[in-house]
């Protein structure tokens, strides 16, 4: 293959072509079969078989150009390399005789920032994002073309939900964790985002994004009429984290400064959009969480969520259809008290009655964990933990019970769905969770009244591939929760000890190797004709 060089000025082209060697990759060493390598000596050339780069030329569109030709003369003994600098002529009548434009045959090089163009380059490329079409999402209402009525009547998946001014905003972090208000909500795309907004109590009522009005102001454009966003509920969160649901959600609460706090600031918005099966939006509601910002706070975290529901349906989130999908939560439930009659299972989409494990917090203190739990996602092995500080004053039994609550959570389920879409009424599709208890006995202290405290919870989920070879579905076969306890030695007063507490989830694939099977074993059909034994029968 030939190797091309951008056309330099004609004077230096011959020098450039003779010196260019693309196969010379090793410094101060001879590359094999590289005939242009200056590090190779005559003995090295005699060992080559071919020249990997036979010709080095400038742009072949020029009428006449210099070319460096490398070849091996295999007839000579020993073989030697031949180097020729020739003038290659392009016979076409449309060959380039001359160019008066310096960058004619070069690739365009990017602008080097200098003092003059730095500001312009910074404007263009300095933001968190830049694209070829920055104008599609501008919030400038004059520039925006209002869409025609028949275009907004039907939304398709992923299309931004349009409102009177631009689109329905779902602030989300872009690149960094700071909120960007330019994120549109896509139709039928359920999203949950969290981002940080910088606030100050003095400017509390002037920051638009802290006020409820900002989120419900503009109505959504849908078919011929516009859908107003109604306020579904308002939850007020106090400074110590306690949330209260307000009984009347009719009153619009705007942020204001009270006693060095900024109250009624929006901490979270949850949009619920109802649509028909043809893609028309018919209803929109927003549930707010309002809170108070103290004077010292420089930033708050806001969380936003949007979910779409089809009218007249009750959606139940499945974790697979039928086999579990990696990354979706493992569905779990309880058997109601009416056992042994095969009654339906109770399971809910409430996060706290799913199969969850302890969520590690930044403080790493088990007792201050405040019940942070993470759902167990299928296929993701997880490990989490916290540290327990034991003082002499702690009593064994309450401590053991607290740790059990920390490890297992408030409501540890009894059954796990075998398939991602197991229905509550199919009792056989649910796998009971086997609970094991292992205690590490310390031999020397068996005489003392042993106090066992649980220190680790290990959930092992065994699953198998089920179904056809081509499209195997994941099916949970067995779930075992193992609690390991250890003896708590009585500490001398004044001393304290730190014990690590861990919980883990492991998914094990126990699929047996697949056996391709025949539809039916082939049978050998041998039947003698009925008159085989003719003369005798």
């Amino acid at each position, binding site marked *: 293959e030939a190797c091309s060089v951008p056309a330099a000025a004609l004077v230096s082209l011959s020098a450039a072509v003779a010196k260019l060697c693309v196969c010379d990759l090793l410094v101060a060493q001879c590359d094999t079969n590289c005939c242009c390598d200056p590090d190779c000596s005559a003995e090295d050339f005699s060992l080559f078989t071919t020249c990997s780069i036979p010709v080095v030329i400038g742009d072949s*569109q020029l*009428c006449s150009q210099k070319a460096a030709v490398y070849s091996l003369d295999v007839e000579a003994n020993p073989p030697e390399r031949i180097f020729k600098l020739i003038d290659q002529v392009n016979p*076409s*009548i*449309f*060959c*380039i*005789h*001359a*160019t*008066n*434009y310096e*960058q*004619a*045959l070069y690739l*365009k090089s990017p602008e080097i920032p200098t003092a003059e163009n730095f500001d312009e380059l910074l404007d263009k490329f300095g933001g968190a994002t830049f694209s070829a079409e920055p104008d599609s999402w501008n919030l400038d209402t004059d520039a925006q073309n209002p869409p025609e009525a028949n275009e907004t009547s039907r939304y398709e998946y992923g299309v931004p939900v349009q409102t009177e001014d631009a689109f329905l905003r779902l602030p989300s972090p872009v690149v960094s964790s700071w909120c960007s208000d330019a994120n549109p909500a896509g139709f039928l795309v359920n999203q949950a985002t969290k981002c940080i907004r910088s606030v100050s109590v003095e400017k509390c009522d002037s920051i638009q994004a802290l006020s409820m009005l900002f989120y419900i102001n503009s109505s959504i454009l849908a078919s011929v009429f516009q859908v107003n966003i109604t306020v579904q509920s308002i939850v007020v969160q106090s400074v110590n984290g306690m949330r209260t649901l307000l009984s009347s959600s009719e009153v619009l609460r705007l942020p204001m400064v009270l006693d060095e706090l900024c109250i009624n600031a929006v901490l979270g918005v949850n949009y619920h959009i109802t649509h028909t099966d043809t893609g028309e939006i018919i209803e929109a509601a927003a549930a707010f969480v309002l809170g108070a910002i103290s004077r010292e706070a420089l930033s708050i975290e806001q969380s936003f969520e949007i979910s779409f529901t089809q009218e007249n349906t009750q959606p139940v989130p499945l974790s697979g259809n039928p086999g579990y999908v990696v990354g979706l939560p493992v569905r779990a439930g309880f058997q109601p008290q009416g056992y042994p009659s095969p009654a339906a299972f109770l399971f809910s989409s409430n996060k706290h009655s799913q199969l969850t494990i302890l969520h590690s917090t930044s403080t790493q203190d088990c007792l201050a964990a405040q019940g942070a739990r993470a759902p167990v996602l299928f296929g993701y092995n997880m490990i989490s933990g916290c540290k327990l500080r034991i003082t002499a004053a702690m009593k064994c039994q309450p401590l053991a019970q607290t740790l059990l609550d920390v490890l297992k959570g408030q409501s540890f389920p009894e059954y796990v769905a075998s398939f991602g879409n197991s229905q509550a009424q199919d009792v056989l599709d649910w796998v009971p969770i086997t609970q094991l208890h292992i205690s590490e006995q310390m031999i020397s202290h068996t005489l003392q009244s042993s106090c066992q405290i649980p220190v680790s919870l290990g959930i092992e989920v065994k699953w198998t591939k089920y179904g056809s070879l081509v499209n195997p579905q994941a099916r949970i076969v067995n779930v075992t929760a193992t609690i390991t306890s250890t003896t708590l030695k009585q500490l001398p007063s004044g001393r304290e000890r730190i014990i690590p507490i861990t919980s883990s989830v492991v998914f094990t694939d126990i699929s047996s190797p697949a056996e391709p099977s025949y539809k039916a074993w082939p049978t050998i059909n041998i039947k003698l004709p009925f008159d085989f034994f003719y003369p005798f029968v």
Partner: protein
Amino acid sequence: NNSSQLSSLPLHILLYVNGVYYIFYFLATLAMIIYKSQVFSYPDDFLAPDLAVLFLMAILEVPRLYLGFKGNLTEAEVPLGLSLGLTVGSMLLCVYLLLWQSYVLWADVLLNAVLLAAYGLESGLKVTAIAAFVS
């Protein structure tokens, strides 16, 4: 006895041939500029001057040939003088297209060289004719 006829026949023939050749030259050069803009990198601020020169030359050609024919046939030196001036202008534009275009292809060199030769010959004949008319 053609001593009373001062109009130059070779000039007339040359003007006619020049007219025909120029049509071919204009179409060929325009086509090549379009080809170059597609195949090579030809930004707009380099393409504009080249196209401007070509169209200017085409616009100048019409009065130039008309004045040449008229001056030669009516044996008047003023139109022929004006035509000579326009020829010099066209020659300069032709030299631009020959030497200072963004991309000069080999075909460009041939076409422009022929046109330049024709203009040169024409200028010589016009000077002779003017000299004949004046004296």
